[in-house]
Structure formats: structure tokens, C-alpha cells
């Protein structure tokens, strides 16, 4: 390799080489952090809820005109929904996964505890809850009918007769032990709540990358209450393939049963997922576009500047060719030159990427960058340089040796 001449040529063109190296360094830093964030957001948005998502939809029901006996109206609705052909089961709740709104309880292991052992999202459901959500019971049993009682709005204060908790919550409360049958307490309450069942998975209603719920996203519990209020959600599970048709049929049916209501919103869990993660996916796409544009701009910059260098050195290249250098040797010269610049840029870039990430870890509670990203980023930047330099280098190689003999 003719490193000597390359280095001495670079020394005469310091600024150009430094400009390219710095561009590549910043490109590398943004590229690996950007790709890292994209990967995290996409992973986040694909987390399962633990429910039979493809076949569940939710109707938000609001009663108009303050009707008496909301509990009876609710039972009539539920009976009508469950009777619809194609419906597997239906329940009522104050919240549902992916909804972004719900209740949290601090759970303790004894009645006098001051701070909680674990936080848990709370879903109020009747004995149809497990079937309507399609969550998988892996131990214990469903609620008995006699355990389910009415809870009149959020101001009602009743203690749950039983709880079905997620595997993750069980592990948090009783690490390495069997949680079934163990007593738990809602913080500040004296009455024991027995754990009667454990479900494989059920996500909390909040899905953000940060903020409320992000620290305990798999810790949920079902408690046996019929949530009676002017506003709540009907959760309906259908047989596979019948969801779309039933979403319409169910609303029609409810209006047939009683017109004095508002069906504020009806959506499938699939739609709820799309909406819940819209801004995360949006961020991933924006970052993707910016990363692509960045790579393109850097590549064009390299093409432009190298082309200029080639033009500047036409005479010298002609002389080298006349003295016996092959076309390959000329191409290799520019490739080696670019490799040296890119390597320097990549070295600085990795340092820059790591410090940028560390700063974001501090400022935004982000995760630490995986080393793999820095390595992949460095390889991408080196390859980018090689590809970008190819065209100007070929142009250089096509300079005829005869040029050397001509006076310019």
C-alpha cells in the first residue's frame, strides 16, 4: 500500500479531509443512536397484552339522563351481548389494556405496611372477565359467582373477595414461591385479599416508553366487581373472523335494548394498539427518514469533494499512469485515502455516539446503547465511504496517461 504518498497528499489538503471525517463521525453518532431508538420503539409497540387481541373489541357506554337502577340496565346489556351469535363472552370493566386510563393499587404483604411491595394495575371484572379478555389462566381458578359484587363508581369502598394476578405480579410479590392462596393487602386496608388464580400475562392499560406504568407494565390484577357507573366499557370477545361484523351488530343491539345512551367509542384492541403506539411508530419513522437523509447527504458530500480532488490532481494522475500505474492502482489510491479518513471519522464517531447516548440516558431515562450498534454503525460508515468514493475514483482511473505529455 502506498500510504506514504496518500498521507503527504492529505497533509496538503487537511481541511477537506477533516470535514469529511467530522461528517462521518456525526453521521455515525446519530445513526447508531437513531437505529437504537427505532429498534426500542418498535419492540415496545409489539409487546403482547396477554389478551386474545385479534378477537376482542370494546364499547364505551355512557348512560344519558341519569337513569335509575344502572345495575339492572347493565345486566340486560350484558345478556344481550352474550346472546349475539358469534360472541364468545362479554364483560364490563372500568378499563382495558392499551386504553391509557385505569386504576392502580399499591399491594402489600401485611396490613400495617407503610409503602407497597408492588404496584399493580386493577381491572374490575365479573366472572366472565377471563373469557371475555381471552387471558390464559395458568394456575388456580376463575372467580365464583358469589365473589362478584357491585361496585358503584369510584367512590364506592368495597374490599375485593378474591384476586387473580399476573405471573409477573406473583413473581414480584413472592419471588420464587407459589403465590396461589397467599394473602395480599391493598395498601391502607386491613382486609386480606386471597389470590385465587394466576394468569400468564395481562398488560397494564398504560403503554408509554416512560411515565406512569412503564415501571410495572406486566403487573396487573383482576378483582371480582361489577363496575356500575354512568360510564364504563363493555369488553366483547368474538369467534375468530367475526369481529368486524359483530362490532356493528353489537352497537345496533345495544341501541335496540335502550336508546338512552351514548356509545362514545367502539374499537377493536387492534385499533386501540395502533392508536396507543401511534406516536412511538411515528417517532421511529421520522428517525428512520432522518437517518436515511443523513446517509445520503454524507455520501453526496464525499462524492462532491472527492470529485473535486480528482479534478485538481488530473495532471498528477496522468503522470502516475504514464509512469506505469494501473487503473486499479489509481482506484485503490482513492479508496485507501477514503478508508483512512473514514476510519478516523469512525473512531471519533464511536466516542461521540457513546457520549451522546450517555447524555440521553441521564436526560431522558433512556437505556444504554448496545455495543453492537456502534460496531454496525462504524461498518456502515466505512462501507458508505467506499461506495461513495467509487464513482470519482473510476473517473480518476479513466484519465489517459497521455495527459502527462500535454501542457495544460
Amino acid at each position, binding site marked *: 500500500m502506498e500510504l506514504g504518498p496518500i498521507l503527504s497528499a492529505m497533509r496538503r489538503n487537511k*481541511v477537506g479531509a477533516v*470535514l*469529511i471525517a467530522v461528517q462521518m463521525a456525526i453521521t455515525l453518532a446519530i445513526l447508531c443512536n437513531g437505529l437504537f431508538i427505532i429498534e426500542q420503539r418498535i419492540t415496545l409497540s409489539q409487546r403482547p397484552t396477554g389478551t386474545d387481541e385479534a378477537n376482542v373489541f370494546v364499547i364505551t357506554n355512557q348512560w344519558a339522563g341519569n337513569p335509575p337502577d344502572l345495575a339492572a340496565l347493565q345486566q340486560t346489556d350484558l345478556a344481550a351481548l352474550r346472546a349475539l351469535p358469534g360472541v364468545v363472552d362479554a364483560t364490563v370493566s372500568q378499563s382495558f389494556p392499551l386504553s391509557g386510563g385505569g386504576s392502580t393499587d399499591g399491594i402489600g404483604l401485611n396490613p400495617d405496611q407503610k409503602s407497597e411491595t408492588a404496584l399493580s394495575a386493577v381491572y374490575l371484572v365479573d366472572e366472565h372477565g377471563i373469557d371475555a379478555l381471552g387471558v390464559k389462566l395458568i394456575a388456580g381458578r376463575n372467580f365464583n359467582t358469589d365473589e362478584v359484587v357491585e361496585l358503584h363508581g369510584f367512590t364506592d369502598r368495597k374490599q375485593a373477595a378474591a384476586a387473580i394476578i399476573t405471573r409477573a405480579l406473583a413473581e414480584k410479590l413472592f419471588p420464587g414461591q407459589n403465590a396461589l392462596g397467599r394473602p395480599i393487602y391493598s*395498601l391502607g386496608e386491613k382486609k386480606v385479599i386471597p389470590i385465587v388464580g394466576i394468569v400468564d400475562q395481562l398488560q397494564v392499560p398504560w403503554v408509554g416508553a416512560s411515565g406512569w406504568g412503564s415501571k410495572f407494565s406486566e403487573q396487573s390484577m383482576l378483582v371480582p366487581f361489577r363496575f356500575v357507573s354512568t360510564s364504563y366499557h363493555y369488553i366483547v370477545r368474538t369467534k375468530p373472523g367475526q369481529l368486524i361484523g359483530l362490532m356493528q351488530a353489537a352497537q345496533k343491539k345495544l341501541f335496540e335494548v335502550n336508546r338512552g345512551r351514548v356509545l362514545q367509542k367502539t374499537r377493536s384492541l387492534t385499533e386501540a394498539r395502533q392508536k396507543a403506539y401511534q406516536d412511538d411508530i411515528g417517532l421511529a419513522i421520522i428517525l428512520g427518514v432522518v437517518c436515511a437523509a443523513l446517509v445520503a447527504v454524507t455520501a453526496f458530500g464525499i462524492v462532491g469533494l472527492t470529485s473535486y480532488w480528482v479534478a485538481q490532481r488530473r495532471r498528477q494522475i496522468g503522470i502516475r499512469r504514464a509512469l506505469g500505474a494501473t487503473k486499479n492502482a489509481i482506484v485503490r489510491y482513492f479508496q485507501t485515502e477514503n478508508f483512512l479518513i473514514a476510519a478516523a471519522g469512525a473512531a471519533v464517531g464511536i466516542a461521540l455516539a457513546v457520549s451522546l447516548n450517555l447524555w440521553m440516558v441521564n436526560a431522558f431515562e433512556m437505556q444504554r446503547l448496545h455495543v453492537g450498534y456502534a460496531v454496525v454503525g462504524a461498518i456502515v460508515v466505512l462501507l458508505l465511504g467506499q461506495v461513495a468514493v467509487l464513482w470519482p475514483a473510476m473517473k480518476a482511473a479513466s484519465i489517459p496517461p497521455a495527459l502527462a505529455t500535454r501542457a495544460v
Partner: protein
Amino acid sequence: MFSYYLALALRSLKRNLVLTVLMIAAIGVGIGALMTTLTLFRAMDADPIPQKSRQLYAVQIDNWGPSKSLPGLGDSENLQPQISYTDAMALMHAHAAARQTVAYVTGAALTPANPDLRPFQVVMRAAYTDFFAMFAVPFQFGGPWSAADDEGRADVVVLSKDLNDKLFSGANSVGKSINIDGRDYRVLGVLSRWQPMPKFYDLNNNQFGTPEEVFLPFTRAIESQMSTWGNSNCSGSERDAGWEGTLRSECVWLQFWAELPTAADAAHYREFLNNYAAEQRRAGRFTWPPHTRIRDVREWLTYQHVVSQEVRILVLVSFSFLLVCLLNAMGLMLAKIMGRAPDIGVRRALGANRRAIFAQCLIEAGVVGFAGGLLGLALTGLGLFGLRALLSEEAARLTDFGFVNVAIAIVISILSTMLAGLYPTWRAAHVQPAWQLKAQ
């Protein structure tokens, strides 16, 4: 002279079209990305009530004490963003500020008078009459309810413009009545368009959402047991069953705002709050030293992290992106100017001084910057269009591209390109005329 340099710059740019296009494209893409994200950032970071943002204060009182707090709920100072009903009522009755209001969001079904129309849901805000004057809420018809209405738990409402358009086709509906949850309310006022961004007076949910559709006296909402549709945190506090139990509890679910026109007023109010907390301690309700705080609108927005982490990351990324684009343009400019060294040599030999060459090249950079800025504006339009399609409805609300942003884009573009052009220009000014003439 300027117009002559401008003509020279245009001619020079035309001569090497490929390099010029590459430069303009690089700067345009950089400016486009930056302005797209900066538009989001500026909308989030905006002052929603500039004329009064230093006079309106959100009030916080620690009614839980240092030992009781849910991780992730309180802040590092162990304060909650909302206060309890007990504290809210005490502060309302004390009248220690020029104006004050407690408020919360609720909702219900509205049944239209026309029986053919289906009931629909309305989002409501329960507040005291001072709410409207404090937050400079504009009225189209009528006005707010009176202090006597607050006192008398009157069945009166103020409607948003959109709801009035929907219910009364935009006509003056003052004196008419609407039915909410089976109860008739008399309309006292209709707002004109009002959209504070961010929705600073309640940042718990939908920070960039539209204001509520119906406003009613807080006392009326409490009497009718309208439960909150916003956040309510009880943190395992003991509380009795029923509505009265919730009111007596230490659950925090109410926003409290005070209008304090001068710094002295604010200082007095701080003192008043601490005295109140000390009084509660003497009464045995609090067992810890007074811990209260007031924050004006701007401090409140910062405290509540209104500018999201995502947008901060995007602004950071796009600034770095613009930097790469500028370095790129700088390299190309350098190439271009060095290629023109012979011309510059001739001009210098014919009597142009360094300053003249410097000015001419800098103007050329400015022209590139201006063109890049125009391209950047077009790309910003495209970028914002993309954002609207990608982001949620609430976030898409933040993508209005104002006149100020156009000016910012052009100024940033020209200045940054000229800055990037400084070094190449300096090199141009130091071309040795003799050497260049000899080489030719």
C-alpha cells in the same frame, strides 16, 4: 456594490451548477428537517397566555407527608400536582389571592331537546367564576356566572363555541337551557374560539387537547356528585365510602390556581400557604412541617414536562443533521472557491482588495443559504404533512407552521450558510494573485 456582487454570485453559481445544486440541496434538507422538528418544539414550548403567565400560579400543598408517596407519582420534592377537596375549599374561602379558582374535569351525556337526536357525550369543567377572568377566556355571547351563582350552586353553564354551533347553530343561546344527565341548566354565556396551547390549566390529560365543551359552577358539580374524569390519586389513604367520603379524604384530584399580580402578592401568598399548612399541623391533620409551593405558568409547564422527551430527541438529532449538512456545504464551497482561484487571482491583480473578494464570496454563500432556506421551507411543508399523517390527532395539532417559523427558517439558513462559508471565503481572500497569474 451589493447588487454587483449579487450578480457576480449568481453568475459564479451558474457556472458550476452541479456543485451549486449539491450545496443548496444539502442546506435545504438540513433546514427542512430542523424546521419540521422545531415547529413541534416551539408549539409545545409556547406560552399559552403571554400577557399573564407571570401572574397566574398553580398551588401545591403536601397533604400526604414525607412517609407516604407512590414512586413515580410525586416529584423529587414529594409534592403532588393536584390538591385535596379539604385544602381547595379552605383556600377558596380564605380569598387570599386577587382571584382564585379550584377546577376539575368531568363529563356527562347531554340530551338534546329534539327527541330525534341521540344523546351525546360532553366534557365539562367545574370551576369558580374567576376562572374566566383569570385565564382571559373570550366570550361571544353573554358572560360568566356570578359569585352569587357559585354560592347558590346555580344550574347555569357556559358553552364552548363548538358546542353552541352544534346545539344552536351558532345563534345566541343565552337564556336557553340544556339537559345534562337529566338536569336542566340555563346557558349564561358562549365562548368564542379559545384554544390555549398547551392546555396549561389542566395538564393531567390531553396536554394539547381542546378545552372542555361545558363550564359549570364547581359547587353545582360537587352537589350533583359529578366524579372527576381526570387523575385522582389516593395513595392508600383511608377514605370512607360514597361521595362524602371522597370529599373528606386526602385524595388529590383538584387543580388550584391563584392570580397574584405582583411579586409582593406572590410572596404574601407563599406566606399564607405556609401559615395554612402550619395551622393544619397544629390541628393534627398534618404531622410534618409546612411544605407548599406556587409556580407561575411558565414554571408549571417546565415542571410538568410539557415538551416531550421524543421531541427533544428529534430537535437534537435535526440540529446535528443540519451541522452535517453545513460541513458538507462547506467542503463543497471550499472546492468551488479553490477551483476559481485563477479568477480571483486576476481580480486581485486588477485591483480588488481582500475585503472586496471576501464580501463577494460571502454574498455568494448568502445566496446559497437563501436558496437552501427556500428549499428547506418546501421540505418543511412536506415534513409537517408527513407528521400530520403519522402522529396522533393531539400531536398533529402542534404542526401549524406560522409566519414566524418562515422567518426563522430563512434567517437560520442564511446565517448558518454564511458562517460555514467563512473559512472558504477567508481562503479565497488569501489567494496569492502573483502565484495564480504565473501558473496560468
